[in-house]
């Protein structure tokens, strides 16, 4: 049994029940009290997301200011349960238009009850796809029940059709496809400047406004795909001299024809309507780091520190990064700070014990610096030396991919043979970008 959830609870941070749905009778009604008593009110909270109390297991996740708790009484599938919660939250978000928090739940609790009935029956997950559910559980239906009656029979057929993710008979005046490659770079660098760990997790997001049942084919500059292509065509790669990328692992949206991917190494699919995540990938080799951070921190005696941080942008000079934030840790007992920056603005934020240096627009091939003097309150009790947390960085670099991945082509076929406009964008963001100092 993947999951036979006995109950699902939504609690706020105080432990008040916002929503509860009991699916099965095999757990008692006081489960939520047990959760409050043994998990929320103890130090255990946050030490482990799976806990057993009595004969029941609790899976819980905190999402903004809400706890979602699933109670099971059997040896359930944990990965499946958590994935279910994640998907359910994504579904709620798409209904509420973004936010998922206590207020959103309180304002929409009737809708959530409706959805909970549809996405899970007797503890077994049913259909969670927002595209389909929105066909028959609509806010519009709430307003005018009679007008919604017409599409309903059609919608229920759709719930389980062969191409579950796409309706037939869609028509757009202008056929457009948007494709975004979004990468996040994770970096862990030692204080000596050597890369301890570095990888890129990327995803390809698409937004399709296409009529009919189009067939799409996407070509990337990944190594395996290119090799396969040249093999199939029995001639050298079509004069593609750029870098080829080795993808460590790829996962696809359910619309992608995986059999074809495995045999021909091309990504071909019939897209869902609107927005969706086409694929995810991971790369560990040959990552281009967009920034280098060179910190020097000197502790001068017990009450003074000198901090110098140089940040070097190593992408093309014509490009620029946006929203760059560099958080430089300082000790808790910091009393006074003074600093100079060659670019952007810096501030001491006592609540997170960091100097926060912000640069709104950061051109490529430049290296601004921050130099700061920090005075500390001298304490006698604090004998321990300061353990330095890493410097953390946030940024976005448009038109840059840390992996070097590029779209070679995106082809759209539809039997009516209309013209489509394709838009491709690239962006690289910081995942966990940490430099020890």
């Amino acid at each position, binding site marked *: 049994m993947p999951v036979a959830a006995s109950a699902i609870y939504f609690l706020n941070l105080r432990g008040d029940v916002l929503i509860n749905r009991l699916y*099965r009778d095999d757990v008692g009604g006081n489960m939520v009290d047990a959760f409050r008593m043994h998990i929320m009110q103890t130090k255990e909270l946050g030490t482990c997301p799976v806990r057993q109390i009595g004969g029941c297991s609790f899976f819980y996740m905190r999402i903004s200011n809400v706890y979602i708790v699933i109670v099971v009484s059997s040896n359930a599938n*944990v990965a499946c349960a958590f*994935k279910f*919660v994640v998907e359910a939250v994504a579904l709620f978000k798409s209904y509420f238009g973004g936010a998922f928090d206590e207020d959103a739940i309180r304002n929409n609790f009737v809708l959530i009850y409706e959805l909970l009935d549809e996405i899970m029956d007797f503890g077994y997950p049913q*259909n969670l796809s927002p595209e389909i559910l929105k066909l028959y559980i609509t806010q519009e239906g709430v307003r005018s029940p009679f007008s919604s009656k017409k599409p309903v029979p059609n919608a229920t057929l759709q719930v389980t059709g062969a191409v579950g993710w796409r309706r037939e008979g869609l028509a757009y005046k202008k056929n457009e496809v948007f494709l975004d490659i979004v990468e996040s770079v994770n970096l862990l660098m030692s204080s000596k400047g050597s890369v301890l760990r570095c*990888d890129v997790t990327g995803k390809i997001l698409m937004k399709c406004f296409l009529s009919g049942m189009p067939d799409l084919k996407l070509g990337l500059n990944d190594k395996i795909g290119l090799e396969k292509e040249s093999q199939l065509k029995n001639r050298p790669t079509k004069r593609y001299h750029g870098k080829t990328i080795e993808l460590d692992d790829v996962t696809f949206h359910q619309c992608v024809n995986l059999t074809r991917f495995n045999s021909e190494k091309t990504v071909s699919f019939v897209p869902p309507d609107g927005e969706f995540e086409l694929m995810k990938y991971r790369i560990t080799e040959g990552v281009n780091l967009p920034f280098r951070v060179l910190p020097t921190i000197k502790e001068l005696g017990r009450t003074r520190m000198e901090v110098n941080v140089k940040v070097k942008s190593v992408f093309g000079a014509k490009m620029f990064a946006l929203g760059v934030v560099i958080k430089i840790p300082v000790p808790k007992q910091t009393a006074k700070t003074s600093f100079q920056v060659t670019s952007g603005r810096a501030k001491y934020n006592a609540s997170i014990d960091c100097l926060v240096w912000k640069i709104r627009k950061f051109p490529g091939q430049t290296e601004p610096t921050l130099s700061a003097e920090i005075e500390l309150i001298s304490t006698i009790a604090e004998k321990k030396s300061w353990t330095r947390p890493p410097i953390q960085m946030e940024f976005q670099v448009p038109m840059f991919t840390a992996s070097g991945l590029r779209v070679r082509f995106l082809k759209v076929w539809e039997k009516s043979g209309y013209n489509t406009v394709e838009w491709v964008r690239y962006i690289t963001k910081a995942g966990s970008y940490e430099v020890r100092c």
Partner: protein
Amino acid sequence: MAPPAQSSRYPSPSQPSGKGEVSDLRLQLRQLAGSRAPGVDDSKRELFKKVISYMTIGIDVSSLFGEMVMCSVTPDIVLKKMCYLYVGNYAKVNPDLALLTINFLQRDCKDQDPMIRGLALRSLSSLRVANLVEYLVGPLGSGLKDNNAYVRTVAVMGAVKLYHISASTCIDADFPATLKHLMLNDSDSQVVVNCLFALQEIWNSESSKSEEATREKEGLISKPFIYYLLNRLREFNEWGQCLVLELVAKYVPSDTNENFDIMNLLEDRLQHANGAVVLATIKVFLQLTLSMADVHQEVYERIKAPLLTLVSSGSPEQSYAVLSHLHLLVMRAPYIFASDYKHFYCQYNEPSYVKKLKLEMLTAVANESNTYEIVTELCEYAANVDVPIARESIRAVGKIALQQYDVNAIVDRLLQFLEMEKDYVTAEALVLVKDLLRKYPQWSHDCIAVVGNISSKNVQEPKAKAALIWMLGEYAQDMDDAPYILESLVENWEEDAPEVRLHLLTAIMKCFFRRPPETQKALGIALAAGVADFHQDVHDRALFYYRLLQYDVSSAERVVNPPKQAVSVFADTQSNEIKDRIFDEFNSLSVVYQKPSYMFTDKDHRGPFEFSDEIGNLTVGVESEHEVPATSVDANETSDLLLSTTEKEETRAMVANGSDYTAPLYDSSSRALPSQGQSELAITSLLGTSDPGPQASMAIDDLLMGLDLTAPPAPASAPPSLKLNARAALDAGSFQRKWRELPVAISQECELSSQGAAALTSAQALLQHMQGNSIQCIASGGQSPNFKFFFFAQKAEEPSVFLVECKINTSTAKAQLNIKAEDQSTSHEFSALFQSALSRFGMS
């Protein structure tokens, strides 16, 4: 999509009292019930929302059942849904009223809109009222034949629900056969998946009763059926795929070709975006290749990349679940992730449960080639702000050191930890150095030099202190001041934990054999303190050493300090059998808990903790409340064995004298006396023995002095017991007189156990209990929850009496005591005795 404006700011009633609001709602619902005015649905909707929100926060709105049902005659689908929700929630407690809903639900089951048919059928099957099942069979039967797939999916689940309410009705209606037919023939994938869910449940529980069901259950993993599912796999949604894959993992193919066919078919599932599907596929691969060793290895290679992706994508909770599985795999095949160790480096902001598992992974994947990098990284974490993680990482370094042959560099690192001067780092490192020395005694020279520099004052944690003491004892000859450090530790005997005291005794013994003149004084003090110790183990060990020394010093040395062999392998905590069972339950909770499912799903294996709906007040202390009576009973029994029957009266007084937690203390006090006598005997006989060697005899003489000096205070620590006269008598008149005359000696509040409060249904119950403790009642009154009692008791030796006024409130489990005593000096003792007697009420 914002909700309608007027409903969007729906104030959540923070803590409404309930009653007023509910009767308000009832009035409004009644007004709306018959109305056909335009817009009436909107107002109904508002009211229904209010009712549901009350229901959610736990206010009982079941009294509105009738009105809700009356209002539900409406074409509005949203109103219907709210009403169904309400009915489903309260039908079970209102079976009579639930009958009212049958009519309209049955009508809705025949609605022309499939949506409404489905919803009504779901509600009807969710009523969970046993005597209404007859109304359910008809609609379910037609639901299963409905031409709309949505209604069929609902009806299939309805059949399982029916099975749980009344198994016989479900079987008699032949629903399992219908489900099976649907499962094999329905065009809709969700119907097929739901049938599979349903039949698994039904046949699983039926298989214990009928052979046919067992056959059917086995049929689910037969070749034709598995192939049927595999061929339709791509139609199913992700959850359905998980279910099917779980089933395929149980299938045993007839030959290897079949194995490869299935794996080839499923290989693309490893690329699925849903991590649950990927894990389920991995399970299939692992299970299919269990008997093919080399293919099994290839499978590990193949699943590596998808697993690492799962770790780094998704929420921390998902990573946690995946990492648990990685850990299981890496224990079976440590080499698979050896070159990917960097994936397990911790990020600064990760939650500690993820970090902890990553540390375990780093420990497990360490081998000759990557140890240096891993240990370097772990050392970074030792300075972490998050103390538990810092501790874990030091332990991880230690574990790696114990695994590897090339420990040179690691020992240096550990010794650096000792010099970091952080309490917890030092503590963990000491424990590790101890383990390391047990395995690699050749490193003692380097380690001891550093350990010798640590001041024992800076080590507070019992485990670390015990480790330090062990090293002091073991390497006494290499550390110049070992005897003196041990001596100073003995002086603070009382402050240390029993674990430390045990180690201290042994260490001093070892030290004594190597450097007798310097240690004898400390040994004497330690043995004396040990013999008088309240802790059973410490006491026994001290006595054992003492008698051993008395018997023969050289045999004592052979026993306490034999030449040791280095430990080659530390015992594994889990047996291979258990590990294999966990592996069979891959992709389930077993892996996260690291124990097979029978250990946490079977009732017998669970802890003492159980839920009960009636008690409802679950307190953290429940477990300890269960423990206490058990130990005190034990104490009672053992003392009964030790003492003659005439002394029983006293014992009881002493038991009563101890408060909740003095069971061990009491225990030792009853025993200290005879053993003290014995040890004195031993000493005198020791004096008479012939030649224990000049050195040893000197030592033992001194030992004696130590004992003689320290022996007298020991009996004083036994609690002076207040004994009560079991047959005390006092007439009402003199009670009243004394009550008027005497001042209140003690006035305080004390607590009853929750069982006690529950057991106090009438005054009589408590009277008998207190009488058993030699406390008599002269008057009682009141009724639940408030009781009032007047008690009295008399000292065993003299006629001095104690008077008690006791007011008990059972709902708060509190008692207010006013105690008066003729002999004021013993009033506190009596109060303690009384309270412990009271607190034990209801436990026996």
